């Protein structure tokens, strides 16, 4: 089992069994990373601590919304942390498209899930091989240090395959949603 699928397994145990040990495993790995991410995004220590606690509580409460065919656990946690950062630092609303879920019965195919998780691992590896300058620029953008005009949209990362996988998962999800409406 790879690192990423281990976290997916933990999320499923949190969602279905309210498993506190699985939560602790995710908390111990991602908590310090979220806190570091927030500190690098300009938050002070006490706010970063509080905000990370909020992020982890959200993860506990909304575990059933996590979809492993469309995101790794790291990616999902990143989106929660980003939204909390906007709430706290900018005191703004964050308009979001409606969330899509598989509903109580259906779920993604195992190979879809594995493919996406593998792509996410490869993306982390690809980022490590980027020239320093380029990697710095991407990190700066995600730590909130670049304005829209300063963002160079060319990341140098191979994003096409991960996009195609998410696209397929969305198509199956939409199909499933339509079937449920009938």
């Amino acid at each position: 089992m790879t690192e990423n699928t281990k976290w997916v397994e933990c999320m499923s145990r949190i969602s279905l069994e309210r498993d506190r040990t699985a939560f602790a495993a995710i908390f111990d790995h991602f908590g310090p990373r979220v806190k570091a991410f927030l500190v690098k995004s300009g938050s002070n220590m006490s706010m970063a601590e509080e905000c990370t606690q909020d992020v982890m509580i959200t993860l506990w409460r909304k575990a059933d919304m996590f979809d492993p065919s469309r995101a790794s656990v790291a990616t999902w946690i990143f989106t929660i942390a980003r939204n909390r950062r906007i709430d706290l630092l900018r005191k703004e609303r964050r308009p979001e498209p409606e969330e899509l879920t598989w509903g109580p019965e259906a779920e993604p195919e195992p190979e879809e899930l594995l493919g996406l998780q593998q792509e996410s691992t490869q993306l982390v590896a690809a980022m490590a091989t980027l020239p320093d300058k380029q990697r710095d620029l991407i990190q700066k953008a995600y730590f909130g240090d670049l304005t829209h005009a300063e963002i160079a949209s060319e990341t140098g990362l191979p994003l096409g395959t991960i996009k195609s996988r998410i696209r397929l998962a969305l198509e199956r999800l939409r199909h499933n949603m339509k079937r449920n409406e009938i």
Partner: protein
Amino acid sequence: MTQINHHLDDALLMGYSAGTLPEAFNLVVASHISMCDECRARLGAFDAVGGAVLEEAGSVTMEMAAADLLDSVGPEKVRPVVSKPTSSIYPQVLMDYIGPDPDQVKWSKLGMGVRQAILKTSSSASVRLLHIPAGCEMPDHGHHGTELTLVLQGAFRDERDRFARGDIEIATEDDHHKPVADESGPCICLAATDAPLHFSGFVQRIAQKWARI
């Protein structure tokens, strides 16, 4: 989903993913993504970059332990069921800004039959709904910053192309354009800008002061 021909660009998707766009732009981006699974998937790829940045962000020790945090969590509130896509022309995220009844949009006159409704967001950029009568020409204007226009109903055409429901036009400093609504019916758009528009005509420049464009 409707056939969409004009999409968000990578810079906007990355800015939305990183969380650095002004609220007004976020609203246009989120509205487009509600209608466009292609851009939703592209956003997913940019969010994955965010996930990779998070993995490599280093580590700062937490003061709170996992078990203590769970003990502090109060009884769970029942979450509202995920909202179904609305049948109105306005995606749910936009309804949150308009209010529950789309018939209650507070339109104000902008001249030549064009109406607008400014939506309340943070001040770094502004966003409004525009209602343009069939066949009507919008005043010729240029831009200083970036202007995003998302079509919600009907269609318009300008020097570049035709834009219909779900399509987004991204205009920058270099663009000077004159959109014309299709003859088939009124066109409703959501438009955001991070700098005042610049109208060519003198009368329009005066009117602009009143219309807060």
